Structure formats: C-alpha cells, structure tokens
C-alpha cells in the first residue's frame, strides 16, 4: 500500500514537475523555449568541465577492481569480518559502495544469483547496496563544476557518513534477518 503510493509519486514526480514549470512559465508569458536553450547551454558547459574529474575517478576505480586487491583484502580480513557478522562475499560492496554505483550493482547481482535469495548474505548485500551513495564521485562532480580545490571537511564528512551507513546496515540487517 505505502509502497504503491511511493512508487506512484516517483513515477509522477518528474512529469508533474516539468508540466507545472512549463505551464507556470507560459502563464507568466515567459519565452520558455529560449530560456530552456539558455539553461541547456550552461548544462553542456558544466558537463564538459567535469569530464576530467569523472575520468580520474572512473579510471582509478576500474584499475583497483582489475588488480584483485579487494579479493586479497577479503582473505586478510576474514576473521574480523566473521566477528562483525559480515560474510566475505559482501566485502566488495562495503568497499565499492562509496566509489561506484554500477560496480556494486554488479556484485549484488552475482550474490543474488549465487547465494540463497533469502539468506542473511543476500539481505545484507541488498541493504548495503540500497543505502549506498558514490561519495567520491559526487564530491568530484559537484566541486569540479564550480572549481573548488580545497574540499575542507566535505570529504571526511562523506567518508564518516559512509562508515556510519555500513555500521547501520550491518546492525539493522542482523536485527531484521540475522
């Protein structure tokens, strides 16, 4: 019930927003087409400006995934992971959740296909993936767009929030499904 409502809001939010903005614009006799193109020009410029930042992050993530370093870390940490109720399979999601959205979805698909779908491992992987945000990427894109070089505490805050998210995901999953 609640789910259907939220799904409907998600479905309608964008079309409704576009519709309202355009209708209000026309009613106020604004040159909507020209304004749209003017804004779009800015968007294209920002897109070009942030390309180097995106490239730097995407290449680095692609390299670390290919190097096998994450699997190695899993072997090293297996005892510790046992204590905190984290199956080794979920470790790549823990590490990649701040780095790459498409990568964690890939790992989650592997886990969902290979483990029991109702197992604690799958649930933890799903909740960890569902609560993730690509911190490094977001920071690179936002600050890249306006040319900020000194991030001050933004990066540290993002990383600490990621850790809080990981801890909360483990605790909540254990509580619900453990």
């Amino acid at each position, binding site marked *: 019930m609640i*789910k259907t409502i939220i799904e409907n809001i*998600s479905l309608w939010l*964008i079309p409704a927003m576009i519709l309202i903005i355009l209708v*209000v*614009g026309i009613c106020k006799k604004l040159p*909507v087409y020209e*304004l*749209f193109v*003017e804004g*779009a020009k*800015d*968007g*294209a410029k*920002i*897109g070009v400006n942030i*390309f180097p930042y*995106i*490239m*730097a*992050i*995407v*290449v*680095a*993530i*692609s*390299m*670390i995934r290919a*190097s*096998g*370093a994450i699997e*190695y870390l899993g072997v090293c940490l297996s005892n510790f992971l046992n204590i905190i109720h984290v199956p080794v399979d979920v470790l790549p999601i823990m590490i990649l959740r*701040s780095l790459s959205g498409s990568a964690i*979805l890939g790992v989650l*698909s592997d886990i*969902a296909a290979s483990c029991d*779908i109702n197992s604690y491992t799958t649930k933890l992987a*799903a*909740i960890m*993936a*569902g*609560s993730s945000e690509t911190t490094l990427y*977001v*920071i690179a894109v936002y*600050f890249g767009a306006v040319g*900020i*070089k*000194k*991030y001050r*505490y*933004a*990066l540290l*805050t*993002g990383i*600490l*929030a*990621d850790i*809080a*998210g990981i801890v*909360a995901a483990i605790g909540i*999953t254990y509580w619900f499904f453990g």
Partner: protein
Amino acid sequence: MNYIWFFIIVISIIFGAINGKLSDVVAAILSGAEQSVKISLYLIGIMAFWLGIMKIAEKSGCVDFIAKLITPLAKKLFPEIKDDKKAIGYITMNFTANAFGLANAATPIGINAIEQMQKHNKDKKSASNSMCLLLAMNTAGFQIIPATVIAILAANGDSNPTGIIFPTLIVTTIAFTFAIFTAKVFEKIWTPQRGNDND
C-alpha cells in the same frame, strides 16, 4: 582527495603486479577512460535538459516558491545563504529528487545549488560551510525506495523483494542524520575559510 586518488592507483599497480594481473590493470585504464566518456556524454545530455527546465523554473518564480515552503529549516541548516531564495529552492529540489531515487535530476539541480552558493563564497577555491553540508546531504544516500536493488532481488527469484525497503530506509536515515550532524560539528571546529567572517 589527492592522497585517496594516489593510493587507489598505486595499490592497483602493486596488487596487479603481485597477482600477475598487470595486463588487466593496464586494460582497465583504457576501459575506464572509455567508460568515463560515455558517462560524461550521458551527463551532458541529462544536465543540459534539467538546467534548461530549471532556467524556466527560476524565471517563473517556481524556485522561490519552493524555497519559501522550507525556509525556517533551511535557514537553520544553511545560515550563510539563508536570504538566497534560489539557493534554498535548489537545495530543496535536490533533496526531493534524491529521496525519490531520481539521481539523474538530483545531480544537475544540486550543481545549480552549489553554483549559487559559490556566488556567496568569499574564497572561490575553497568549499564554504554550505557546500560541505550540501555534499554531506548528497553523499549520505538518503532514498525512500531503492528501486534498482529491489529489481535485482526480484529478478533472482526473491518472493518478497520489497522486504528490504523498511530496513534500508532506517539505515539511510541514520547515515543522513549522522552526515548532517558531522558536518555541523566540523563547521564549528574546522579551520575557518579565509575571508569569510561568519565561518
């Protein structure tokens, strides 16, 4: 960021060498670069579209209207820009889009917000408190329905894939609250920006 990026690259090369996967790592540079072009092209398209729509919203007063709705809360959270209706409006819309899982719309609107904040920023090279808080809100991953994850579970035969919605919501709420709290604490104790009196 310099160190994080540096370590990711160095660790990749060292582990690539140890694991005998050096050729894979080199291939990953090429595939990563190629992938980043695809992401950027996609981003240019979607960003141009949303910033176009937002331009109309801005001129027609829609942004100011939304800003008015949450002004009291926003004034508390973003004291530096509390009188900038445009910035507050963009922040609200950015949060709404994130909450409903519309990352494609959230990013361009968030960039609108940070550009607006940059106008109030006295040191253009360094992040203002408002920017750090905006990023904290954006990196905490607050989302009401994790649609993609549910789709993956359902595709693999989960009879109750939506069972994770509530636990996930609790997790993201914790992370989101924590992010705002942390940003606010750092705001007090971090070295102030040059030039900004009220930092």
